[in-house]
């Protein structure tokens, strides 16, 4: 039985409890957290690559935004304990992107401007679970929120939704990425409260 904190009443969330994972609270704004300065790659230089398949595949910004895209509404959960419900994005499904590559990988690492990486098992990014998103709330994604494009994997803690994503590297092993190498959980399921390594 956890220790009761004398005199603590708390502010009971108005959100639906079955949509707020353990330890999280609802916010109205959209907090910005990241490691390091915000990168700014001009769109003329931006490319998205998939490596580690039979052959590397690459798109320019024009080619990428011409791919079939969809609108996605999702609840998002940051490991720093804020949650935001019904966020609206537009992006290209990883099913579409990975469908262009021949491979037999089990994992991938997303790599980004500024050097950030995060790792994911393939089964967590296929079948309508992940996108590369370039619009948020009907507008082009701002750089502080990961624009021009970020990974969007809403069923996991939002550090897996890598900002400033530039590509995916398909792999046979689950290689810990940036936060995973700095004390955070290798998978990050918010409903199992998998925040830190060993949780």
């Amino acid at each position, binding site marked *: 039985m956890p220790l009761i*904190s004398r005199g603590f009443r708390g502010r009971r969330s108005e959100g639906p409890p079955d949509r707020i994972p353990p330890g999280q609270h609802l*916010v109205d704004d959209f907090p910005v957290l990241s490691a390091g300065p915000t990168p700014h790659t001009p769109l003329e230089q931006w490319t998205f690559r998939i490596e580690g398949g039979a052959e590397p595949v690459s798109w320019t910004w024009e080619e990428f935004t011409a791919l079939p895209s969809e609108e996605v509404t999702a609840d998002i959960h940051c490991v720093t304990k804020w949650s935001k419900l019904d966020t609206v994005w537009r992006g290209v499904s990883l099913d579409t992107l990975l469908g262009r590559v021949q491979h037999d990988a089990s994992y991938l690492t997303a790599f980004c401007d500024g050097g950030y990486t995060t790792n994911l098992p393939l089964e967590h990014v296929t079948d309508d679970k992940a996108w590369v998103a370039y619009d948020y709330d009907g507008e082009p994604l701002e750089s502080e929120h990961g624009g021009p494009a970020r990974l969007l994997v809403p069923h996991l803690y939002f550090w897996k939704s890598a900002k400033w994503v530039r590509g995916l590297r398909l792999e046979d092993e689950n290689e810990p990425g*940036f936060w995973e190498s700095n004390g955070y959980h290798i998978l990050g399921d918010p409903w199992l409260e998998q925040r830190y390594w060993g949780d």
Partner: protein
Amino acid sequence: MPGPVWLATTVTGKVEETPRVRTLLLNAEGWPGHRAGQHLDVRLTAEDGYQAERSYSVASAQGEPLAITVERLADGEVSPYLVDEAREGDGFEVRGPIGGYFVWEDDGRPVFLVGGGSGVVPLMSMIRSSSGPTPIRLLYSSRTLEDVIFREELEARRGGLKVFHTLTRAQPPGWTGYGRRIDAELLREVAFPAAERPHVFVCGSTRFVDTAADGLVALGYEPESIRTERFGATGG
């Protein structure tokens, strides 16, 4: 290797740093120790079992007893409890230490610390953990003089530490420090030359961090050398 577990914690002391800020001295059973810059999670439990969790930076030096320094946020849920209500003998749970990135290990390279408001807390853990000749500069932005946390201790720590204050809202008569929000010009006057390859740690609100980080990149600092910690809605 198991992750950090929730530890029963007692408040053993409380210090008023500024009108909105308190330091809580804590005894957490089984606390494994921390490195300068790390943080911990606090979990409060109400009588009906309702729980709230938030993260706070550790203020004490590596190797010293655990202390956190908390600013009361007007719309906060946990910080008003810690600042206004919690007293010696009260209990809650903590787990940590957390974070392997915003951490300083002294390797002799100069250190440039840039803090906005309560962003100074993890930087203070670094300052308190330092000894020896490593040159350290702190650029510290606060609204007014009475909002400067750890003011007397920073005054007393002349030596390897150079502190540059800027007060953004009001300056007292005779003030000789800076009196505006940080900008590229201010950074240029205060920062180590980029060629000295200092460690850089910036902590504060996201807008503060962006201004500082972009300004340092413009001065020739390598982006990868600038470590940032942004206070989103994590405190509260």
